[in-house]
């Protein structure tokens, strides 16, 4: 008797349910459980709304994530555009150089930033935090934009030029709209990890600045599992909303492509 090949997915399906779906269900259950007496309750969320410090950290983290995303976009878009133009950049090595840092341990990169600031005798603090964030996540902005731009059909640009559009019009009316899927997935790839980082902020600011990720980590470490789960769930919802707003399928457009 032969086994159908489709059943080969079964072991992995079981694994996914146990180690991907179930943990997320558990977080939700813990978040809605009363830490005192058990039972379903909204106590953890009420606690969050009433804890001024945590609320402030939450809002501040969103601000930092937004600023980082905008800075990455402003710096990254021109870079992606240049990389995609064969008349301005012929070498594929520069492309690889821009993508490589994505694969270096974030902690190592953060400590390297700390080392750079020490070396340049610059103070650690909010400035270092923003530099570190942009430095950490810029490649994640460049890569998707570069991908869409280099796949773009060049004849659209030519058509616009032939019809008499000046370069600025060609950019705003043709290139930019066509590259929006890449921009959105870049925004997502920068915003999501920035909003959820921990450790990075404490190292870059000598514990002066706290981000929401650190708040979650501290609560989990100190045994406030229910409250920590609730905070994690809030972050998950925030990320879910961002994903929906920016269009989910954009994030995985490189499915058929290589690793890099």
């Amino acid at each position, binding site marked *: 008797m*032969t086994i159908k*090949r*489709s059943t*080969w*997915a*079964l*072991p*992995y*399906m079981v*694994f*996914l*349910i146990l*180690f*991907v*779906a*179930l*943990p997320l269900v*558990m*977080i939700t259950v*813990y978040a809605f459980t009363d830490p005192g007496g058990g039972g379903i309750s909204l106590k953890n969320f009420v606690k969050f709304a009433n804890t001024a410090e945590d609320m402030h950290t939450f809002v501040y983290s969103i601000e930092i994530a937004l600023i980082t995303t905008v800075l990455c976009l402003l710096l990254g878009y021109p*870079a992606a555009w*240049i*990389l995609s*133009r064969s008349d*301005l950049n012929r070498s594929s090595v520069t492309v*690889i150089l*821009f993508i490589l*840092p994505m*694969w*270096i*341990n974030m*902690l*190592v990169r953060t*400590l*390297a930033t*700390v*080392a*750079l600031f*020490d070396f340049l*005798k610059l103070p650690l603090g909010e400035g270092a935090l923003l530099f570190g964030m942009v*430095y950490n996540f810029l490649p994640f902005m460049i890569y998707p934009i570069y991908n869409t731009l280099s796949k773009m059909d060049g004849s659209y640009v030519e058509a616009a030029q032939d019809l008499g559009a000046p370069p600025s019009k060609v950019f705003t009316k043709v290139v930019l709209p066509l590259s929006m899927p890449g921009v959105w997935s870049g925004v997502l790839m920068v915003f999501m*990890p920035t909003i*959820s980082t*921990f*450790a990075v902020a404490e*190292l870059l600011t000598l514990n002066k600045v706290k981000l929401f*990720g650190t708040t*979650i*980590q501290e609560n*989990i470490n100190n045994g406030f*599992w229910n409250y920590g789960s609730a905070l*994690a769930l809030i972050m*998950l919802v925030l*990320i879910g909303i961002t*994903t929906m707003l920016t269009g989910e399928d954009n*994030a*995985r457009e490189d*499915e058929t492509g*290589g*690793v890099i």
Partner: protein
Amino acid sequence: MRKLLAQSYLWLLLLILYSPIVIIAIFSFTEAKVMGNWSGLSFGLYSNLFNGQVSGALVRAIENTLSIGVLAALLSTILGSIAAVGIFNLKGWKKKSITFLNDIPMLNPDIITGISLFILFVAVGARQGYVTVLLAHVSFCTPYVVLSVMPKLRQMNPNTYEAALDLGATPSQALRKVIFPQIWPGVISGFILAFTLSIDDFAVTLFTKGNQGLETLSTYIYADARKGGLTPELRPLMTIIFLTVLLLLVIINIRNSRLTKRNK
């Protein structure tokens, strides 16, 4: 002129992007305690690293990182490759739901993956340590293996398997002699990718390592940095990690571009 301007913008960004790691690499060749002080060229830190002059905790952390990396890569490659063949042959809602679940670990932020697994292990009363870290790593590595094997299956001629069966091969022979050789490049890329992801991980490991003293390189570096700055012995180590990852990625890229060329 335009090209010069464009190129200088690119190289300026690259300079900023790489300067931190370059500085660490430069100062790995001097023994000064504080980075920024140059106390003369020396390979002392490197020879210490290989002569067992470093703390036992660091050595154990490196060993753990490598063994977890190899095991996690091995397990997720086996699990993921078999699953990819299965998923490829699935249809309809079954395919959709497993693809959806497969996407979650890739879209989920590390901290959520870490905490959700931590809560799971707490809830079932599992003692957290080596095994839980390994399971966690397999859970976030396997999706990437599936994604690197899948394109190879898509490129395959679906009739070759049936042809092998018609010619008298048993299903397992057809698998070994027909399907497997064709997806092998994807499997290898998946393995390298999984290994890289595993040795690179910090957040998930931190939440699932328990409190029995298990450390990987990332968590060791984190604990060390929190105690106040980077100890000198970590500078050559970080340089080596950087170069290793660089090398692995260059290999993956050369392989990929060669394969695409061959396919054309």
